[in-house]
């Protein structure tokens, strides 16, 4: 699961050589055609669509106009963009604070003990965003939510509804991001030398100091890559802000979908998508750069590389 961003080096058999004949190209034909048509071409269409002119009937004609981008960058949409980025960053931060220590401690357990946790994480990851939104709206509702539990415990006067609203959106964001983060960190953390933290302990470091000074510097690239992955994933979520948020929490995906489906304004939806794509890439690159060594130095001098 780490491959999308962590990009492990691919080991090749030593005997790779030229003169393999047509086989590699025959084998690559279908993947190349399929991914070009289904991934690259759609992106190209979106890039072009942003400049097309909307026709009243709901479709569009080929043109080169900048009105769509002007609207995509107006005060309203820029504010929505800022809200989207801040919400996604907040969710990413909370997710990492939970996922990093959890994954580290999980990978210190015997393999057989890890399996039930991994199954739970995988099953949660695959849970539809629609079901997640439904579940959290129940969990935070007045009739069936946690507030009833707090009333029963005497901690609250009467049951309350906490959805829709900001806490509901953030809780659900972290819920969908946590399994993804754990699985993305898992390969790096489980390949980490089991003895490193112990060695730090032997040399007098407290477990926390050992984790911060020995483990974290070794995994910071993976942590940053995971942060970027989670950020993009949360930033692109539609159902959660739409269902669990008030209009104040409606993010870019809500407005993109609204324009594309409800208002039949594909060119505006496309220009909003391109703006979102550019901003998400820039933030993701910045997060990855943080992991390349511009963090405050937590490591001791002469640490193992």
């Amino acid at each position: 699961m780490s491959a999308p961003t962590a990009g492990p080096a691919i080991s090749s058999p030593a005997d790779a050589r030229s003169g393999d004949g047509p086989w590699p190209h025959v084998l690559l034909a279908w993947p190349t055609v399929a991914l070009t048509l289904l991934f690259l071409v759609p992106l190209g269409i979106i890039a072009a669509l942003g400049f097309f002119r909307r026709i009243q009937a709901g479709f569009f004609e080929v043109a080169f106009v900048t009105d769509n981008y002007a609207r995509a960058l107006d005060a309203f949409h820029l504010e929505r963009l800022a809200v989207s980025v801040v919400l996604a960053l907040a969710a990413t931060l909370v997710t990492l604070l939970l996922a990093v220590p959890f994954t580290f401690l999980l990978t210190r357990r015997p393999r057989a003990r890890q399996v039930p946790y991994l199954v739970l994480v995988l099953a949660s990851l695959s849970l539809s965003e629609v079901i997640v939104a439904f579940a959290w709206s129940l969990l935070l509702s007045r009739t069936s939510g946690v507030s009833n539990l707090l009333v029963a415990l005497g901690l609250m006067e009467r049951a309350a509804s906490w959805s829709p609203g900001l806490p509901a959106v953030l809780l659900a964001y972290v819920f969908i991001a946590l399994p993804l983060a754990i699985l993305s960190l898992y390969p790096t953390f489980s390949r980490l030398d089991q003895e490193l933290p112990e060695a730090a302990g032997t040399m007098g470091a407290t477990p926390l100091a050992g984790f911060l000074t020995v483990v974290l510097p070794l995994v910071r690239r993976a942590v940053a890559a995971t942060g970027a992955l989670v950020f993009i994933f949360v930033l692109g979520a539609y159902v959660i802000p739409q269902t669990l948020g008030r209009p104040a929490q409606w993010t870019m995906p809500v407005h993109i979908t609204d324009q594309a489906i409800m208002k039949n304004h594909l060119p505006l939806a496309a220009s909003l998508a391109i703006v979102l794509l550019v901003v998400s890439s820039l933030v993701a690159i910045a997060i990855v750069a943080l992991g390349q060594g511009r963090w405050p130095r937590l490591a001791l001098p002469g640490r193992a590389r």
Partner: protein
Amino acid sequence: MSRWLRRALFALVVVYLLAPLVVVAGVSLNPRQVLFFPPEGVSLRWFGTAFTDPGWYRPAINSLLVATFAALIAVSIALPLSYVVWRYRVGYARVVMAMGLAPFALPPVITALGALALWIVLQSYGRPHTVVLSHGAFLTTLPLATLTVGLQNLNPQLVEAARTMGATGGTVFRTIVFPYVRPYLLAGFVFAFVLSLNEYIIAYMTVGFTFETLPVKIFASLRYGYSPVMAAISVLFFAVAVALFALVGRVGDLPRLLGADERA
């Protein structure tokens, strides 16, 4: 870190991941059309409704069909691609690989909008094959990731030995590579299948209500009237996912399939 701290953190994560499901499971047991938790009583009638009401089982069948074919497409792209990248030096293979991994580096809504635009241009918006193909390409990342891990773990000397003894490329693939990566292939298929089953936004933007999948149906119900049947369906979904991943864990070594190194 102290054992106490570890237990607290594990408990927190498990409770966080399970709490919504506990509530959903409780709500699904309500005998009346209410969404109370704890439930007013215990009844399995909403699970019955899920299987007998065509409004619910038709989208379920649609979802199963889409997920099966989409996962097959994802695997059909990922297997030759990961094999060529591992086995040969072909310049553009890396580019194709990047395209296969890129969908997870894009906000999902953009992938969905791209699919919508593509199928409108090709004038096949709303037809069932659109969601199958778009899911297939989007989810290729998953078998690509598991297969890449699998091939990395395969000892190149095995291939070298077979070559020395006169095996052709095809024979090496059939007798060494394929048997070795089979569990990774299965895991990749299951990931793609389960994620397609649960995917909402691409399905909504490619076929919407003309070929309604279960997540699209649930989302519509979310907006126009809750029912305990939604809870029952959600419980069934979670059960299917747990069963499939547990099966993968039974067939293969789950930690290794997810990228832990080779170690007993």
